[in-house]
């Protein structure tokens, strides 16, 4: 290794990462709770009532962040799966595995809160709109990833097969993201855009961004917690895990 170069693989050892994850974990959970309390305070008390949708719009402070996370977590999962396939690193595949249930939860919440929002504003729990349908397909992709992983007994083969499936499923993410642009649908267009000024009050925007950060922190915390369990489960035969079990 070159002098001064960063060793990117230092934390690729499950043992080291287990300790790092354990140190990061409480901070992520505390950050997630504080941000969620702050974001909900802004969203439920400070933000003004919407002119068109009344109070019903306030579910946006949960709906939009979890919908973002459903896509981001899928990309992260596919990214880790890709790293796992290319570098044949166990930890990357474990991360992909740990992210899947959290991503599925976020997708489910996005669909659920969307249904709760749809009933008062559209008059229907569900419509077969491009964005709703593609989000449902995303949920199926998460479930497919987890089922394929569960169906294969050998964890390394399961990692690789499910990883390949996750990479194939990535094509769905841009379809979801751009569905409101490509098809003229019932689902409203994006509320937040990087290229043009936001179409909403700045308090609402702040609340949504804070909630989005809370969701990020939560997802990272949940994934770290789960990856620690996976590490201990898969490395149960190693000396350090047995030491850990004895000292605990």
């Amino acid at each position, binding site marked *: 290794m070159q002098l001064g170069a960063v060793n990117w693989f230092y934390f690729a050892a499950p043992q080291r990462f287990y300790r790092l994850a354990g140190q990061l974990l409480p901070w992520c959970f505390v950050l997630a709770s504080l941000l969620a309390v702050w974001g909900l305070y802004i969203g439920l008390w400070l933000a003004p009532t919407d002119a068109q949708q009344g109070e019903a719009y306030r579910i946006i402070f949960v709906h939009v962040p979890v919908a973002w996370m459903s896509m981001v977590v899928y990309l992260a999962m596919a990214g880790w799966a890709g790293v796992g396939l290319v570098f044949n690193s166990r930890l990357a595949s474990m991360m992909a595995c740990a992210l899947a249930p959290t991503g599925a939860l976020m997708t489910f919440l996005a669909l659920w809160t969307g249904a709760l929002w749809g009933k008062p504003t559209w008059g229907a729990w569900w419509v077969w709109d491009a964005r709703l349908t593609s989000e449902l397909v995303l949920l*199926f992709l998460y479930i497919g990833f987890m089922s394929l992983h569960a169906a294969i007994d050998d964890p390394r*083969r399961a990692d690789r097969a499910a990883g390949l*499936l996750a990479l*194939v499923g990535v094509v769905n993410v841009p379809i979801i993201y751009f569905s409101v642009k490509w098809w003229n649908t019932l689902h409203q267009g994006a509320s937040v855009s990087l290229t043009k000024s936001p179409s909403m009050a700045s308090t609402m925007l702040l609340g949504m961004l804070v909630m989005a950060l809370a969701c990020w922190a939560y997802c990272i915390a949940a994934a770290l917690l789960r990856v620690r369990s996976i590490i201990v489960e898969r490395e149960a035969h190693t000396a350090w895990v047995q030491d850990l079990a004895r000292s605990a």
Partner: protein
Amino acid sequence: MSAVTHPKQPAALPVGLLAAVQCIFVRDLRLALRRRADSLSAMLFFVMVVSLFPLGVGPEPGLLRSMAPGVVWVAALLSSMLSLSRLFADDHQDGTLEQLLLGAHPLAFLVLGKIAAHWIGSGLMLTLIAPLLALQFDLAADACGVLVLSLLLGTPVLSLIGAIGAALTVGLRGGSVLLSLLVLPLAVPVLVFGAGAVQAYQAGLGFSAHFSLLGAGLLVSLVAAPWVVAAGLRIALE
């Protein structure tokens, strides 16, 4: 081993890539012909599923006419799932698949030969009997033509995407149910654009956009899917 110690051994015959692909293709077609019951039961399933809809939703001609493209497409999707689990299963059991993996030719091309043979046994057959079923739904003759064209463009994509699922689930317990679970979400765009083309035609709109998208899907999956299938098979057989 050198040639000196085995003077009588002929030099390895260099079988060209195309010849190898053709060989696999012809072999799989011949196997499908010898086991006609497999393809025929998938066809029968297709006909039955389509016939169930008028019984379920009622025989009102207007409703059936508007439903026909979607029903035929969904049935085609389901019945092509049926035969997929056998795409690699037999070769996996008798060890042929391992020989293909060990061979000198790139696996992706050999796999393409297998997928093409599978498509002729399932997708093409479905396309050929689809007009008959569409007539039962009182679909106009020109709409039938659009339906056949959309199936002709779309069913190869189903075989290509399905092969990915078949490769990932080869040799697994309960593989065929899992296969459907993995492949159906990925096949949704094909269904949407395939059935959408006929519906757009029925509504008096152009269907060229749907056909372009189906064609694009076919090209992309034709290029990408065999490589993913090959990677999947390597994972399954390591």
